[in-house]
C-alpha cells in the first residue's frame, strides 16, 4: 500500500468561494484518515452524477465512476453488490439526485444498500447556469422561472426518513469539522447513509448570510428515536425562517441489501456442469 497524493493534476474549475471546495476538503481528510487507519484506498470507489459537484471525480485521486445525471445510486449499487469489500461513496447534486434520479435515491434508502451518499445541495442548477431545483425556496427566480417558482421545495431529510434510510444527517459547507465527522460516520455505518449538505453556490445562490445565523448542531438527540428525528427534520422546511438543525437525525442498524443473495462464484467447469445438469432435466 502506498500513500498517494489525494488530489489529481486536473485543473480545478469551481468558482472562487464555491462550497464544493469544502466538501472536497472534508472528504479528502476523511480518506487520508482512513489510509492512516490502515484501510487501503484501492478499495474505495467514488461515484458521481453530472453537475458542478461531480467534478470531484476528476479532482480526487481515487477510483471513480463519473456517471450520468441522476444515476449515481444504481451505478454504486451495482459496484457494491459486485464487490462488497469496496467502500462506495456517492457524491450527487440536488438537481441530480432529487430531480433526475429521485426514484433511485428512494429505492436505495428502501433497500438499505451499504453506501454513503453526500448530496451537494446548493439548491440551484449551477452548471446549466441557474435554474430552480427541488430544494429551491418557493418564489425562487431562475432562468426557467423568471416570475418565481410556484411550488414549495421538498424536504430531503424528511423524505429519506420516510423512505427507510438507516442513517440520515445534514451538514453545511461552512461547518467543515462537523461535515468531516458526518462523512466518516456515514462511511462507518453499515447500511444506507444519507448526508444532505447545505452548500453555497457562490455564483447563483450565495445564501451564507441566510444559513449561518440559523444553523445549530443537534446534540444529545437519541439517534434511534424515529419520531424525534421526524420532528427535528420538519423544523425547517427549506423555505421559511426557522432554526436549521445540523448533525445526525437518525441512525439504526438493519440488514443490508445483498446479504441474502447467493454469492457463490463458480469456476468454469462447475458452471458448465451446472448448465449441463439443468439441460439434462429439460427433456
Amino acid at each position, binding site marked *: 500500500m502506498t500513500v498517494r497524493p489525494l488530489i489529481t493534476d486536473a485543473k480545478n474549475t469551481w468558482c472562487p468561494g464555491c462550497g464544493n471546495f469544502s466538501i472536497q476538503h472534508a472528504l479528502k481528510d476523511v480518506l487520508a484518515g482512513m489510509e492512516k487507519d490502515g484501510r487501503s484506498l484501492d478499495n474505495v*470507489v467514488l461515484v458521481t452524477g453530472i453537475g458542478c459537484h461531480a467534478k470531484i471525480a476528476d479532482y480526487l485521486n481515487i477510483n471513480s465512476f*463519473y456517471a450520468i445525471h441522476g*444515476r449515481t445510486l444504481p451505478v454504486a449499487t*451495482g459496484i*457494491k*453488490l459486485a464487490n462488497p469489500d469496496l467502500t462506495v461513496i456517492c457524491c450527487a447534486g440536488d438537481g441530480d439526485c432529487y430531480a433526475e434520479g429521485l426514484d433511485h435515491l428512494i429505492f436505495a434508502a428502501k433497500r438499505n444498500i451499504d453506501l454513503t451518499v453526500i448530496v451537494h445541495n446548493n439548491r440551484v442548477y449551477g452548471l446549466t447556469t441557474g435554474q430552480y431545483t427541488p430544494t429551491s425556496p418557493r418564489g425562487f427566480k431562475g432562468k426557467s422561472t423568471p416570475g418565481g417558482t410556484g411550488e414549495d421545495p421538498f424536504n430531503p431529510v424528511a423524505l429519506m426518513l420516510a423512505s427507510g434510510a438507516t442513517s440520515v444527517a445534514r451538514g453545511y459547507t461552512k461547518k467543515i469539522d462537523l461535515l468531516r465527522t458526518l462523512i466518516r460516520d456515514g462511511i462507518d455505518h453499515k447500511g444506507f447513509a444519507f448526508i444532505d449538505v447545505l452548500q453555497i453556490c457562490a455564483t447563483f445562490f450565495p445564501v451564507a448570510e441566510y444559513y449561518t445565523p440559523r444553523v445549530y448542531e443537534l446534540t444529545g438527540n437519541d439517534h434511534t428515536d424515529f419520531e424525534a428525528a421526524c420532528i427535528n427534520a420538519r423544523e425547517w422546511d427549506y423555505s421559511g425562517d426557522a432554526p436549521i438543525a445540523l448533525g445526525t437525525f437518525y441512525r439504526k442498524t438493519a440488514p443490508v441489501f445483498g446479504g441474502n443473495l447467493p454469492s457463490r462464484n463458480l469456476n468454469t467447469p462447475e458452471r458448465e456442469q451446472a448448465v449441463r445438469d439443468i439441460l439434462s432435466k429439460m427433456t
Partner: protein
Amino acid sequence: MKEVSVLVGGKAGDGINSAGAMVARLLSRLGYRIYLYFDYPSLIRGGHNFAIVRGADTAIGTCGTKVDFILALDQECMERHRNAQKPDTAVIFNRDLVKSGGQGISIREILAAEEAPGIMGNSAIIGGFARAAGIEWETLVKVFSSHIPKGTDQNIRVARRAYDMLSTVRPVEPCPGQPLPLLTGNEAIGLGMVSGGLDAYVSYPMTPSSSLLHFLAGEQEKLGITVIHPENEIAVILMALGFAAAGKRSAVGTSGGGFCLMTEGLSLAGMAELPVVILMSQRTGPSTGLPTYTGQADLLFVLHAGQGEFPRLIVAPGTTEEALYWSAAAMNIAGEFQIPAFILSDKTFSEGTYSTDLSAVPLIPQGNSAAWDRSSPYRRYADTPSGISPIASFGTGGAVVKVNSYAHDEAGITTEEGPIVELMAKKRLRKNEGLAAAMSRYPQVDISGARTATVALLCWGSTAGVCREVAGRLGLRVVRPVVLSPFPKDPLMTALEGAGTIIAVEENATAQLAVLAGQHGIVCAGRVLRYDGRPFTPEDLEMRLREVLP
C-alpha cells in the same frame, strides 16, 4: 415429413402453457422434434389461451394452422379454432363445459373421484390425449414423474381415469430419434449467458423478456449468479454497468419500452467502454402495442440507439442451438472489446419451445482479455493499436481506475481538448475493425433450403423455422444473417451468390433488414411482411410468397 400437431386451449389461468409443455414432452419421448407456440392475451384470468404443439421427424421452428388433435378445456376453444380442424382431427374435450363431437370426459367427476384440486384438471385432459394418441401408459408416467414435483401420484391417478375412459382414435407412431432437451428461446439465451461467464443478471419485468428473469432467478443458486430486479430499466442498465466496472460480467433483459429507458445507459456503456449484454426481446409496437404478441420492428432502433457513435454487437439467434452459442459468444465478445452486445429476440422466439440438439452447438471461440500489466500509473483508457485498453477493475491493488461518461483522456480525466477528444473517438471506433475481424471466426450467416436456388428469402431471427420449411416446399434458398452488427456484408454476399431475386421476409411493416441490406448494396426485389402481432405460419407465408415469386 412425419408430423403431428396438437392444440390445447382454455381460459387464462387454466395452466394452458404447462399443459402444452406436457404434451410436448410426451411427443418428445416418442422421438419427435418439437416446436411449441403459446398464444395468450395480456391479462391474468379469463380470456383465451392456447398452445400449439407440433412434433416432426426433423428439426422444426414453426407450426401450421391445422392440427391433428384439439384438447378443449372450454367452449371458446372450440369456437375459436374451428378452422384448425381437419376432417380427421381428434377432439378431446371437457364435457362439463364443452359441447362437441369427439371424446368428452367430465373433469369435474374425475377430480371428485380422486378428491383432487381443480388445478389437476389438465392432467385429466393429458391422460385422455395420451390414450387417444395411443401413447403407452408408461411414457406418461415417466413424463409426469420427471416434471410434476408435487402431488405426482395423484396427478397420475387423475390422468389414468381419463386414459381408461377413452379409446385410441388417432395413433401417433413413434419416431426413431432420441428425446432432446426442450428449451424456450429465453432459457437457451440464459444458459448461453451463463456459459459465457455471466455473474449478474439485472432486469425489470417486461413481456416477453420476463421469463428469462424468472428462469435465472429460480436457478441462481445452482448457477452461482446474482439476479436483481430493481426499480426501473434505467436502474437496470446502470446497475449492470456498476457490476461491469467492478469486474463482473453482467447482462440485462427487456423489451422495446424498457429499452427506450436504457438508451442513456447504453450510450454510457459506449463512452465508458463497459461490457454489458442486453437481451432485447421485441413485441408488437409502437408504445405499449400488443404486450404479449410478436414483432421485428426494433432492428433499426437497436442498431442506432444511444447518442454518439460507438461499436456494438447485435446478434439475432433463430434457433435455440444458436441462442446457446451466440449468448455465450456475446458475453465473451462484449468482455473482450469492452462494448455493449445485443441479443435481439422476439416474443415468438423468447417464449416458443424448441427441441434443442446440443451436439449441434459449436464450440465457442474464446476471446483474449486485455489484462493490465501493472505498469504504473494505470490508465483506464490507454490508447492501443486495437483500441482496447488493458482492464483493471475497481479494487485492483495499485490501480486508480477512473471510469468516465464525459469525453476523457487516457487516464479517464474529463477533457474538452479537441485533439484528445478526436484521439479517443478514434480509439473507440478502432475497436470496430478488430470486432469485424474477430467475427470472421464465427458462423455469421445461415443458409438453408435449396442452397443454389436463384430465388433467396432474406430473413432474420425467429422466422428462421418458417422460412426454412416453406423454402423447402417451394425450392427456394434461405439466407439469414445471425449477426446484424457489425453488418456481415461479405459472408452475406457469398451466401447470396447466384440469387437473382431476393425476397425479404420480415415481421414488421417497413422491411428493416431489407433497408439495412440496401445500405450495403444488397437489393431486395420483393417484400413479404406481417405485422399483426402473429408469427407467419407456413400456410400464409407460402401463399404470400406465391403472389410475389417470379
